[in-house]
């Protein structure tokens, strides 16, 4: 067992040395793979950053309940008590119609509105802050609240939140779709580079088989080469995406501050880097394995 591990360490080492011996050509190869990886990874980071910000935004939407003009204090108390005990209502605030009028006067600068109108045309209102909910649940809540007695209107503009949510979901799906496409590209690129290597070492492979090499011995250096190639390109991609976030963040922060949001593109977490590393290595090895198996099958002695 120890000897077996020693042999594999040996193969891994010589495969790495082989890559380092041709730094320029291999760097180009690695860059190609890294860029292919960086596209879905960047999109993924963008989408998950956006999800983080909108998670903060989703707590702010409010539902305004306008009461009927004829509502009595008893009605107000009834609505208030059902809001108080509602499980999906986080907080609420009562706005008296006189206070609303005063605010309107202040904002519009028309001090004489009330004098001209004679009586206050504004209704009493409750401003309800729901618990953080999915857009669909918010819709339900709005309908439920508008059904309370003596509530004329429950106003809530959920459309923008729903659109935003749908767009983020779409972008997320696009990221996964891209990831699938580039995973396939990863396999194909490795298949191709390993196939070239096999062709260059055809004679060595043929002689090795004649003097007792097993198929796994023949495959081993190519699998290790592909594993290194995948692993190194994943690290390079990590660098690229971090660099991108580093470049984009100042501009993004400035833009977001206009809306009073603290927005930053997040970078990959250690666990995500590990997953990407393993994924890239496995996909590369799959490409190499397919190329090697194809060659071995084609050159099977009779």
């Amino acid at each position, binding site marked *: 067992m120890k000897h077996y591990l020693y042999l594999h360490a040996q193969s891994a080492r010589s495969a790495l040395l082989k890559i380092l011996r041709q730094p320029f050509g291999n760097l180009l190869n690695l860059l190609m793979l890294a860029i292919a990886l960086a596209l879905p990874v960047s999109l993924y980071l963008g989408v998950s950053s956006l999800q983080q910000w909108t998670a903060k935004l989703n707590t702010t939407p409010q539902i305004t309940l306008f009461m009927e003009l004829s509502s009595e204090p008893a009605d107000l108390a009834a609505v208030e008590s059902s809001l108080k005990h509602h499980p999906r209502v986080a907080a609420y605030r009562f706005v008296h119609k006189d206070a609303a009028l005063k605010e309107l006067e202040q904002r519009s600068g028309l001090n004489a509105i009330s004098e001209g109108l004679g009586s206050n045309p504004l209704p009493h209102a409750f401003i309800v802050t729901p618990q953080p909910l999915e857009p669909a649940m918010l819709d339900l809540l709005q309908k439920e609240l508008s059904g309370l007695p003596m509530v004329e209107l429950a106003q809530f503009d959920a459309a923008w939140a729903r659109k935003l949510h749908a767009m983020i979901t779409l972008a997320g799906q696009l990221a996964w779709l891209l990831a699938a496409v580039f995973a396939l590209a990863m396999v194909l690129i490795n298949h191709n580079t390993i196939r070239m290597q096999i062709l260059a070492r055809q004679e060595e492979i043929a*002689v*090795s088989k*004649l*003097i*007792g*090499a*097993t*198929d796994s011995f023949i495959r081993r250096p190519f699998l290790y080469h592909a594993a290194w190639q995948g692993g190194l390109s994943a690290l390079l991609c990590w660098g690229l995406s971090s660099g991108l976030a580093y470049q984009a963040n100042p501009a993004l922060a400035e833009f977001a501050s206009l809306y009073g949001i603290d927005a930053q593109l997040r970078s990959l977490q250690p666990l995500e880097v590990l997953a990407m590393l393993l994924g890239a290595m496995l996909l590369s090895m799959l490409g190499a394995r397919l190329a090697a198996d194809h060659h071995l099958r084609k050159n099977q002695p*009779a």
Partner: protein
Amino acid sequence: MIRFDQVTKRYPGGHEALRNLSFTVESGEMVFLAGHSGAGKSTLLKLVSGIERATSGNVLVNNQNLSKLRASQLPYVRQHIGVVFQDHKILFDRTVFDNVMLPLDIIGFDRRDAQRRVRAALDKVGLAGKEKVMPIRLSGGEQQRLCIARAVVHRPSILLADEPSANLDRAYALDIMELFKSFHQVGVTVLISAHDETLMEDYGRRIIRLREGQFAA
């Protein structure tokens, strides 16, 4: 031990290289294989090393029936056999040392142990000073010796040589034969093919004569 039991080898296209051939080579024996080119010598050696498979009949090598062995098991049979190929099959992209190292890499020898063995094998065939030389710089005779070193470095129990003395002058050919004899003396089963019988007769060993895939009278 090598045993052929009614072995026939027919190549695609219908050419019969060996016809219903039966014989035994005992462990530790040294046997010559004679016959004109095309008589089936190379095919016979290829059947022993599992490079080709018999069309019918059984080929037993070290008590394993190669005709019944799965393809994935053949490499392990080859690892116990040393082959001196007719066309040498030397790799010209690496040094003499690395050429001889190849069988040990395949078997998975410890690096340091392997290096010692490679030096011993090169010393044995008289290439001790040429470890770092590229094979293209070697003479024909030296390339032949390199091929022999590679065939014996893993100490196989069976050594096969296909026309090892072809293209060599007689003195050099005798040298090579002496080399094979020395392997035979330490217990290796040796099977050598040649079309020049005068070289064999000096040794007083058994000679299997082939003609058109059968024993010649």
